[in-house]
């Protein structure tokens, strides 16, 4: 980023960070009723009594995602093409959700309206050629259409694998891998000035994804070390290529946790289940994002940190609203938004496996 837009972006991020929800604020939100939540966040029309529960939930999630992606669009305005490309690549996760929904819908031959009801309306800057894909009559036709765009390689691979195995795992794994691979590629195009802070922050995100996938593929899905390694995306920080090669060869959950570098070892010490690891790693990423937002110099890195925290906040808000729509007890909602610790015994790794 050139020097001139840095102060503007930093000021913009600082001003926007007032909107972030702290843990205490999230805890306070758990105590509010649904009408109070609707009034506070301007969601009254979406939570109208006449609408059914599913429609309400869908509308709220859509509105929250729109808010997040609108803010993303505002933040990328002063950035150059590479920086904006990186943040847009991050925002395309929602397009990826849509793509997976479409794939599953076509695979299980769901009704068009059923699929349509589960797709997010996304702004043009992060959208896939969804309508074109939506019109496909079957998963193979969908993959053929996908082959004509930026996902051509994985679509071809996915189609070949799908034709052999008729199951979507390999395809979905390839899509996820492509998504994170694209982020790494774009990160490497950003200048050094912003690059180090971005590398630090995005590294934490990739470490989290890499470790979770490693544990899931190895112990939940029972994949071989070779297959597991092939499905992983090396991180730019802790879990780089060589470390992943060593970790996938380890045989037990505890051995892997013990072989992790700091600060992951300390952070995950005593974890007994994948759920717990996921929760703690989530905390690790948000801590890193908070640190970058508070102390960072790079406007781009701070913008990305803001978006990560903002997403965490809006998803927490959605969980609270969803919990209330489902009539769940407050204690359970608090556990879901990580305000309180679960007091039920966690599933052991052995059970999960």
């Amino acid at each position, binding site marked *: 980023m050139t020097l001139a837009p840095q102060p503007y972006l930093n000021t913009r991020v600082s001003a926007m960070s007032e909107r972030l929800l702290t843990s205490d604020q999230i805890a306070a939100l758990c105590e509010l009723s649904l009408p109070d939540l609707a009034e506070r966040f301007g969601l009254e029309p979406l939570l109208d009594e006449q609408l059914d529960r599913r429609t309400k939930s869908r509308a709220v999630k859509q509105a929250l995602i729109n808010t997040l992606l609108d803010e993303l669009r505002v933040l990328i305005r002063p950035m150059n093409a590479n920086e904006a490309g990186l943040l847009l690549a991050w925002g395309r996760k929602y397009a990826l959700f849509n793509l997976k929904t479409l794939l599953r819908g076509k695979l299980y031959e769901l009704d068009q309206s059923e699929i349509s009801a589960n797709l997010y309306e996304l702004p043009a800057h992060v959208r896939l050629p969804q309508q074109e894909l939506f019109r496909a009559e079957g998963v193979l036709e969908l993959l053929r259409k996908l082959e004509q765009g930026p996902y051509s390689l994985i679509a071809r*691979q996915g189609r070949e*694998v799908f034709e052999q195995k008729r199951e979507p795992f390999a395809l979905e794994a390839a899509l996820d891998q492509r998504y994170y691979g694209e982020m790494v590629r774009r990160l490497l195009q950003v200048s050094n000035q912003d690059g180090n802070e971005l590398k630090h922050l995005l590294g934490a995100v990739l470490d989290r994804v890499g470790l979770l996938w490693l544990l899931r593929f190895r112990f939940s899905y029972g994949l071989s070390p070779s297959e597991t*390694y092939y*499905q992983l995306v090396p991180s730019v920080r802790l879990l780089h290529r060589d470390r992943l090669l060593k970790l996938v060869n380890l045989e037990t959950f505890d051995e892997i946790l013990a072989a992790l570098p700091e600060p992951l070892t300390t952070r995950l010490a005593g974890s007994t289940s994948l759920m717990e690891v996921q929760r703690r790693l989530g905390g690790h990423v948000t801590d890193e994002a908070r640190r970058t937002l508070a102390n960072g110099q790079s406007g781009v890195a701070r913008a990305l940190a803001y978006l990560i925290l903002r997403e965490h906040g809006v998803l927490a808000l959605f969980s609270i609203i969803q919990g209330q729509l489902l009539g769940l007890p407050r204690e359970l909602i608090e556990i879901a938004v990580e305000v309180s610790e679960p007091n039920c015994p966690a599933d052991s790794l052995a059970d999960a496996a």
Partner: protein
Amino acid sequence: MLRQLSTTHLRPLTRRLRQVGTKVRTQLAPLLEQAEPRLIRLREAATTRLRPLAQRIGQAASAARSRLGPMIAEMPHLAQQLRAEAAQAEFRLRPLPMKHVRLLVITDDLPQASLTLAETESFHPDTRAPEAQMLSGIPGRDYRDLYQQARSRLEKIAKVVPIDDTPPIEQVRVVGHDELRAVNEQLGERWAEASRFEEAFRRIDEQDRFVREQQASLENFSNLHIDLGALRNKTRFLDFYVGVVPRENVRRLQGAVSLADHLLFTYLERGDSTHVVIVGPRGEKEGQLASVLSSASFQPLPIPAALEDADPAHKRDELATQREQLEAERAGLRRELADWEQTHHDRLLEAQRALLLAEPFVTLDPSIRSAGHLAALAGWVPARAVSELEARLRGSLALPFELEQRAPTANERPLVPSVPIKHRLLAPFTMLVKQYGIPQYGEVDPTPLFAVTFLLMFGSMFGDVGQGATIAGLAWAFREKLGRFYLFGVMAGLSSVLFGFLYGSIFGYEEVLPALWTSPIHHPILMLKIALGYGVVFIAVACLLAIYNRLVVKDIAAALFGHHGLVNLIFYLAMVFGGLGLAGSGELGTTPLLLILLSLAALAVHAWRHLDAPFSEKVLVVFIETLETVVGYISNTLSFLRVAAFSLNHAALSLAVLTLASMMGPAGHLITVILGNLFVLVLEGGIVMIQVMRLQYYEGFSRYFSGDGHEFSPLRLRRRAA
């Protein structure tokens, strides 16, 4: 007396004539005798030679008659079309009055009502939900879903075989739900067949690609000095894989195979593919590889048997034969597809027609609401077309209906569509105006004014008979490629020609043509004065239009005190007259001075009252805004000096070209003049165009044209005339 006259004058004359006649006969007789056979020969030759020619002319005339016949027959129709176009063409600044129309029909009549509305091409749907709560149903959703699926299928089929987008529709009729369902099912079957063709073509392409990879691999193998035959079979201790993998996957695959104690070597890279050899010990980890290789899209390459013994040329021939077979297969498939298209062509066209007839109802879908058997739809219709619309509905709907019309309310104004000015000559200018925006309903449509001022400015800045004629000629020559936009080039070129005559300039030469008016380079001060005067008039007219536009929407305060409102205009004109006085008599004048001070004070007070800020900030903002008004109008007026500057620049550039040319010999002179004119045409022509657009957009449109309206886009039946 008569006899005397005859005796004295006529008799000698008669005698003389007789003598002359005898002499002529005597002298001409031999000549005539000689000439007669020649004349006979000439007549025969003419008959022999001219007859075929006459026959050919007759044939040509007959052919011309047969060719021109339809054209001649079409002439009255064409003339009628032109008359109709001329009748519709309009040069108007005020918007076409619109009415809001609400149509209440029985639900069963909805498809017919949609068709009728589409036929009139005067109904722009209003998609707002109706105020009446009872009208909450949304009919026709099922119909729309069917239509969309059928349309999607037809579009996919059209990518495989050509299908006319807008076939002639001889009879406009309602396409019922059952018919649409049948069309959709039929298209589903056709798409299933067409997609099989698509898939077959892809399979051939894939095989072809793989054969090409093998050809490349063969070249590579033949250069290696190892026993590749050994790689074909797994040994007791070693496991071999030779194949192609997407380049993007190689590094990850390398890591993955290393975990199974295997090694990956790259021996060839082609495009997105990498040819690799994977080697490792046989054993329990070997099993892990199959799944990884599958995930990495690894394609094993058949290693040529007995490569070391076989003739590489033979293998090449074999692969070439395989490719030829694939090509033959492709050609066969194309023939099969052509047959398939032939078989289904008419039915696909019928399906296209059915979908085009169903389209209006589907397009209207978001505007329709219903309650029981009653459906309501709303839209905007030009006021003059409402009665015809009602008459058409009366003629086509079997069941009772009600049509309500009313003028748009003030709040609805941003929603009312604007009908664009239709005129062939203005069409290219309309496109340029659209780049800025669409006039909001009520706003003055700037297109005619834009066209006139654009041509005036372009011509005056680029006045040259030769170059103008070149622009017009090129635009005419490429009229088919340029579409309607060619008229823009022709008119700009003609404007340039006109000013070229006024300036006496042709291809930069100023001595060839006598100037009908004056040459800019010889009277620069006059040109600058005219440009300033033009600028003042332009800005004053823009302000007047801004005032008018605000008065139309009843925004009196903005018309008076807003940007470029009445007070601004008074200030500006007072400043202009004051400036003229200052330049003429050296005095600003009391009245202009008073008007300037009063108008600035009025603007400052207005800004002060509408500013919600601390005192010091208010002072600062009002001061800066007032200063900006003064500076802005002065700089905007001076901005028009560029009109004169470019006319001078044009002449100066031409002079430079001719000076350079005069230093050369005859050939050099000609080449320099041609290249110089080309340079002036492309570079200066482009710059002048940009400058004119800038003056139009910034000095004109930004004052009076919001451009945030939306275009009248009526419901239409897409079809070609039968």
